[in-house]
C-alpha cells in the first residue's frame, strides 16, 4: 500500500456567498511531525480540516493525497470533532461500528474495539451507553474510535475546547500516544499552551489565509508575521 501522505493543498479557497473562509491556502503536509493549525476563532481552522478530510469540497483549488482515496475502500484517515457524536449504543459498540464501516472482520473487530477502549482508559465503561458518558469520557471514546481504525492521519478539530483541565490532560496524553503508535497528527487549536505542548510545527491561519508556518519553538519565540505576533501577545497578555 503506497503512503497516504504527503497531502498537498494548492490554492485551496472556500467561499460562502461573498464571504471568503479560506483564501488560497497552499501547503504540503508531510508524514511525521505533529502539526498544529493555530488561529483565532473564525480564522478558518475547522474549515481547513474539513476540506483536508474530504467533508467539504473547496470552492476552488486542489486537495491531493499522495495515494488517492478509493471510493468504497476503508478510509485511511480519521477525524475527531470538537463535539463528539455518539450513536445510541454502548461505548464498545460505537467503536465496533466504526471498525465495521472500515470492513474489519467480526472477531478482529471485537478485539480491536476492546483494545482501543483499554488504551483510553474506558475498558470499565465498555458496556455503558455512549451518550450517557461525561463530555471528557465521550471525547476519549471518540479518540478510541479513531485510534481503533489505525489511521495514517488523524485530524483533531479543537478536541479539548469543551473540556475541563483534567479531561484536557487525558485527551492530550492520548493524542501523544496515537502519534507514537504511528499516526500523523493534524490538530486545530486556539490554545497556545496546547499548541506548545503537543505541536512540532505550527500552521498559523489568519482570516482564512495561511500566514505563517514554522517549527513550534521558532513560532513562539520569533513569529515572522505581525499577525502571529499579535495573536501570541493577545493570547498571553502577561508574556
Amino acid at each position: 500500500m503506497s503512503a497516504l501522505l504527503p497531502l498537498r493543498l494548492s490554492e485551496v479557497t472556500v467561499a460562502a456567498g461573498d464571504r471568503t473562509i479560506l483564501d488560497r491556502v497552499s501547503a504540503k503536509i508531510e508524514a511525521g511531525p505533529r502539526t498544529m493549525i493555530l488561529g483565532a476563532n473564525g480564522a478558518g481552522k475547522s474549515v481547513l480540516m474539513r476540506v483536508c478530510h474530504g467533508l467539504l469540497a473547496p470552492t476552488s483549488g486542489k486537495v491531493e493525497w499522495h495515494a488517492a482515496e478509493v471510493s468504497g475502500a476503508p478510509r485511511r484517515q480519521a477525524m475527531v470533532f470538537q463535539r463528539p457524536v455518539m450513536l445510541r449504543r454502548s461505548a464498545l459498540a460505537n467503536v465496533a461500528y466504526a471498525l465495521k464501516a472500515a470492513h474489519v472482520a467480526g472477531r478482529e473487530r471485537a478485539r480491536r474495539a476492546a483494545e482501543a477502549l483499554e488504551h483510553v482508559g474506558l475498558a470499565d465503561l465498555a458496556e455503558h451507553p455512549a451518550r450517557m458518558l461525561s463530555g471528557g469520557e465521550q471525547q476519549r471514546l471518540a479518540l478510541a474510535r479513531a485510534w481503533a481504525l489505525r489511521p495514517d492521519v488523524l485530524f483533531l478539530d479543537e478536541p479539548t475546547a469543551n473540556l475541563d483541565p483534567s479531561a484536557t490532560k487525558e485527551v492530550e496524553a492520548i493524542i501523544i500516544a496515537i502519534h507514537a503508535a504511528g499516526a500523523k497528527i493534524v490538530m486545530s487549536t486556539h490554545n497556545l499552551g496546547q499548541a506548545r505542548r503537543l505541536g512540532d510545527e505550527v500552521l498559523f491561519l489568519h482570516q482564512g489565509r495561511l500566514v505563517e508556518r514554522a517549527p513550534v519553538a521558532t513560532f513562539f519565540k520569533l513569529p515572522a508575521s505581525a499577525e502571529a505576533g499579535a495573536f501570541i501577545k493577545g493570547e498571553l497578555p502577561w508574556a
Partner: protein
Amino acid sequence: MIEIVALSLKVSLSAVLFATLLALPIGAAVAVARFPGRHALVVLLNALMGLPPVVVGLVVYLLLSRAGPLGQYGLLFTPPAMVIAQTLLILPIISALARQAVEDAWIEYQDQLRSLGVSGIPAALTLLWDIRYSLLTAILAGLGRASAEVGAVMIVGGNIDGVTRVMTTTIALETSKGDLPLALSLGIVLILLVLLLNAAAFIVKEAAQRRYG
C-alpha cells in the same frame, strides 16, 4: 361489540404496520438523498398529511371496484380493502414525520458518518436505528389518524354488519339511528384504546431515553 373493537384494532394496526414498513425507507431516503425535485417532494409529503379520508376512500373504491384496475381481486367491502385505504391515508403522515426526524439526526451525524466512510443506504439505516424511539411518535401519529377516521373505511368497507363494521362506522351509524348511549360508549372505548396505546409507547420511549440518552 367485542368483534367490532377487535376488527377496528386489526385493521388500524395492520395499516400502521404496512405504512411504517413503507414510510420509514421513504422518509429516510428523502432526508438523506439529494436529488432534483427533493424540495417539491418534501412539500408534497407534508401536504398529503392532511389528505381527507373520504378522498382516499373514494380513490381506493375506484381502484378496487369491479370495473376498476384491481377489481378482479374482489377486495371491495372486505377488511383488506380497509387496510389498503388506511395504509394510503397514513403513509404520508409517517413518511413526513420520519423525514423530519431523520433529517434532524442527519444534520447532527453527517460529518461523523462521512468521516467513517458511511453514506447512502447504510447511513440511512444507522440513522433510523439510532432514532428508533423518536420514530415511535411518527408511528403513533399514523395510528391516531387510522383509528379515528371514518370516511375511508366507510366507503371501501361499506359498514357491513359482522364483516366490515368497525368502531367509527358504528358510531356514525348508531348516532344517525338515534342510539346515542351505544354510540357514546363506543366512542369512549375508542378513546381509551388510543390512550392506552399512546401510554405504552410513551413508557417505552421514556425508558429508552433514560437507557441510551
